[in-house]
C-alpha cells in the first residue's frame, strides 16, 4: 500500500515517529503498533468506550480517530496510571470498590474518570452516571464503578490538586 502517513506522537511521555497506513485507526495503532494493549476495542463504532484514551487531556474514543490525527498530540493510556508497582488512587478505588470483574472495560472507565478528576469537581452519583454513559460494562452493573469514581473525585477535590500535565476543562 502506498497510502502511508508519518505520525509523530507522544504516548505516556515518550515521543515516537511511525509510518502507518492512512486508514489505521488510533486504537489499532496504540495496540498493535506501539504495544499499548491495555486500550481495548469493543465495537469500532464509538459506542462501547473500551478504547477510551486521553488525547491532549480530553477523553476520546480512539476507534473514531485515525492514527494520522494523533500527529503532534499527547496521548495517555491506562499504562500511564500506575507508578512502578503502585496503583494510583483511582485504580486503588476501583480495586477497593470491586469496580471490575472481567476487566475488559476497565481501561475505558479509568481513562474517562481520569479526565473527570482533572476537572477538580465533586459530582453527584447521577452526574457521574451521566459522565460515564459512553463506556459500557456488562459484568458489574456499574455500582462498583460509580462508587470508585465518586470516592476518587472526592479525594481529588479534597486534595485540590490538578495532576501535572493535566488540563482543566
Amino acid at each position, binding site marked *: 500500500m502506498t497510502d502511508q502517513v508519518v505520525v509523530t506522537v507522544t504516548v505516556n511521555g515518550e515521543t515516537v515517529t511511525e509510518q502507518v497506513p492512512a486508514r489505521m485507526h488510533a486504537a489499532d495503532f496504540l495496540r498493535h503498533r506501539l504495544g499499548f494493549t*491495555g*486500550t481495548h476495542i469493543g465495537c*469500532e*463504532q464509538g459506542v462501547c468506550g473500551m478504547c477510551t484514551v486521553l488525547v491532549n487531556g480530553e477523553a476520546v474514543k480512539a476507534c473514531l480517530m485515525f492514527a494520522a490525527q494523533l500527529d503532534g498530540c499527547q496521548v495517555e493510556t491506562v499504562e500511564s496510571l500506575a507508578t512502578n508497582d503502585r496503583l494510583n488512587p483511582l485504580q486503588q478505588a476501583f480495586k477497593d470498590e470491586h469496580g471490575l470483574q472481567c476487566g*475488559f472495560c476497565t481501561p475505558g472507565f479509568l481513562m474517562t474518570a481520569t479526565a473527570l478528576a482533572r476537572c477538580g469537581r465533586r459530582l453527584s452519583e447521577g452526574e457521574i452516571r451521566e459522565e*460515564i454513559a459512553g463506556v*459500557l460494562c456488562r459484568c*458489574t452493573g*456499574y455500582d462498583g464503578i460509580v462508587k470508585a469514581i465518586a470516592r476518587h473525585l472526592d479525594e481529588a477535590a479534597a486534595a485540590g490538586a490538578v495532576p501535572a500535565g493535566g488540563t482543566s476543562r
Partner: protein
Amino acid sequence: MTETLERRPHSVEVPSASLIGTSTARKEDDRLLRGDGRFTDDIEPVHVLEMAVARSPYPHARILGIDISAALEFEGVRQILVGADVRKMSQPLTVLRPVPGAPKLPYYALADDVVRYEGEPVVSVVATSRAIAEDALELIDIEYEPIPHVSDVLDALDPDAPQIHPGLVEGNLMVTNPEGTGDPEAHIRSADVVVEGRFRINRVTGLPMETRAVVAEWRPGARELTVHSSTQVPHLVRKQLAEVLSLTESDIRVTASDVGGAYGLKLGIYPEDVLACLHAMALRRPVKWVEDRMEFFRATTHAREATHDYRIAARSDGRIVAITNRYATDMGGWNSGFGSAQLSSVVFTGPYRVEDGFVERRVVLTNKTPIGAYRGYGQPEVNFAQERLMDQLARKLGIDPLELRARNMLRPEDLPWRNPAGAVYDSGDYERCLRMAAEAVGYDAHRAAGRGPRADGRYVGIGLSSFVERTGYASARFLAKRGSQYGAHESVTLRVNRSGGIDLYTGVSHMGQSSETAFAQIVAEVFGCGYDAVRVHGGDTASSPLNTGAFASRTLIAASGALKAAAEKLRDKTLRLAAWCLEAPVEELEVNGAVARRRDTGATVTLADVFTRALTGQGIPPDEDPGLESTAHYEPTDAAYSFGTAAAVVSVDPETGDFDVDRFVMVHDCGVAVNPKIVEGQVRGALVQGLGAALGEELRYDAETGQLVNGTMMDYFAPAAPDIPPIELLHTEVPSPVTPFGVRGVGEVGTIPPAAAIANGLCDALADFGVELDSLPLTPESVWRALRGSTG
C-alpha cells in the same frame, strides 16, 4: 411423592476467623487495572496472519457459485477457503450438549450448498493484515439464490413453512421433550380456577465486551497446535478441535488467560475456531481472527427467544393443584454447542409446592442465528410466565399476590423436595426471602394506601417475583443420561515451589467470575498458608488437570471440593516433612502462614525450607518420596438450588405508558458466600443484564427480508450507567447440605426475576385499567399498546 428423599444435616463448620466469608482483595485486579491483562487479541506471535470471513447476507439461500480468482491475486492474500475445501480438510463441528432425542445436525465450518441464517460463514480469507483480508472479501463474488425463509418460531411450525433441514427434521420441529408427574389435566378439569397465558420472550444477546477471538499456531515438526482462545472451556475446546481436525488431544494445547466476559456465549468451538486452525496448519504460520462487533451480532449465539403457554390450576383458597407449561424455543438455523434453553423445564414450578405438573419443550428451527447458552438459560424465561400468571391468579381469586405466593411456597421442612420435572431442591427458606423483600419495599404500606394516581398523575405499583434457581450439575450420571459430552466434576493441581508458595493449576479460565480469588481463599484456608502465597494459573490445558469449565453456576460448587481435597493432601505431607525437620510428632504441627509450627514448643520451620527439601529430595524422611504436589477431582452429588424474591416499585403514566422503576429490591440466598463482595458483584451484574433484557434489549428481525435490523452496538440497547434503576440487595445464608462449604452457585441468578417483577409492578399499577403484559421487552410503547388494547 413416591420416594423419601434423605435429609442431610449441613455438617461443614466454617471457623469464624476464616478466609472463607471474607471479602479479600481480588487476585485478578492489579493486572487488569494496569492494562496488563492478556486477552486473546493481545497475543501477537511473530509472522502472524489475519483472517476475515465472508458471511451470508440472506437468511436462507442456495450458494450457486463462488469466484475467488480476483481475491487470490490481491497482494497480501495468503489463502482462501470455501465450503468444499473445508469438507475435505475437516469434520463437522461437534456439539457439547446435544438436545436429547433430536438429530445432531452436524455442519461444517463453511456452508457448502445452503446458508440457513444471515451471518453464516461462507468463505474465509487469510492475509498479511485484517484490512487486506477484508479488502479481498470485497473481490469475492458469491452467487446466491434466495429461497423462502421463516423467522418466527410459531410460523416455523406451520405445515406450509419453508423447511430448514428437509430430510433431517420434519416440520422444523427438532424434538419435543415432555416431563412431569401426576395427572395435571384431571386437576385442571376439576379445579376451582384456572389461569393461562401465552408469554413471548425476546431474543437477546449476552453481549460480552470482548468479542470472540482465536489465535492458532501450528508447528508441523512438533505436531503441536497451540490455540489461544477467548473461551470458558479450554479443555472442551481442545476435545472438540481434536474431533473436528482429526488430531489427537495430545497434539493440541488450548490457552485462555483473560476472557473479556462470556456469560455462556463462549462455550465450545465456533466455525471460525476451526477455520483459523485449518489456515494455520496449511500455511504453517500463526493465524489470528478477532470477531468484529458487526460479526458478533450475527455469528455468536443469541439467546432466550421462546413462547411459553403456561397454565395454573388452583383451589378457591389459592392452593395450586397443577401447573403445565408447553413452550417452544427458537433454535435458529443450526444446533449450537449447547442448544436452546432447557432449564425452563427443570424449574418450571418455581418455589411452589406442586405435585401434579407437566412441562414440554419443543425445539424449533428458524432462519436466524443459532441460539445457545446465556446466563440464566431458560430460568428468566419461565419465571416471567410463571410469576405473571401468579399475579393474574391472585387478582382472579381476590387474594393478595404476596399471600398467594406464601401460601404455596415450599417450607424449609418440606425440603429436600423433588419437583414434577425431577429437580431435587436441597434446602432453603423461600418464604423468608419473600417477606424480607416485601418489608424492604414497604409492601403493606403500599397496599394500605389504596389505588389512584399520585399528584403527578402517575400510578404506582409493586411487583413481586419469586424463584428457585438450579446451580451446578447433579452428577456425571445425570449428564450421561442427556448425552452431554462433559462431566460434572472439577479438578485442581497444587504444586509447591522453593519460594514457599503454592502454584494452583486449574482449567477454569478467568472471565470475571473471580475464580482466582475464591480458589486461593479456599486453598489458603484449608492449607493454613497466607492468601498471597497461592498463585493461580488458569485456563491452560498444558498445565491443568482435565476439567469441565466455567458455566452453569457450577464452578465453585464443584471446584471447592477439589480444592479442599487437594489442599488437605498437600498439607498432610507438608506436616509430615515438617515434623521430621522439627523432630516432633506430626499431631503437634500446624501450618501457620509462612511456617509450619509446633503447637507445644512454638518451634517453626519455614514453608520455603520444607518445600525446598521436598523438591530436592534432600533432608526428608527416608520413607517419603520426593516432590510435593497433589491433584484432586471432585464430583458433586447433587445440584444446589438458590432462591429468592425480587420486588419492583414502578410508577407509570397511564396516558403515555412511560414508566420508571423507582426501586428494585432483591433478597437472595446463595448459601455460604466465600467472598461477599464478589457475590454482590455477581448478583448486581446479572441483575443489570436481566434489567436490560426486561426493559429494552431485543434482536429484531425484519419479517420480510429475514435480516437482523439492529445488529450493531449503536442499534442494540445495552444498559449504560444512567439506565439502571436503584438496586437494593439483601441476602440470607442457608448453607446447602449438598455442597462443600455449603455454597450455591451465584453467577446467573440476577437475570431471573427482573422482567416478571417489573411487569407485575406495571400491571399492579394499572390494575384498574385491566392491563396484563405478556411480551418482552417491557417498554413505554408496549405498555401504551396494552393500555389501548384493554381500554378499547
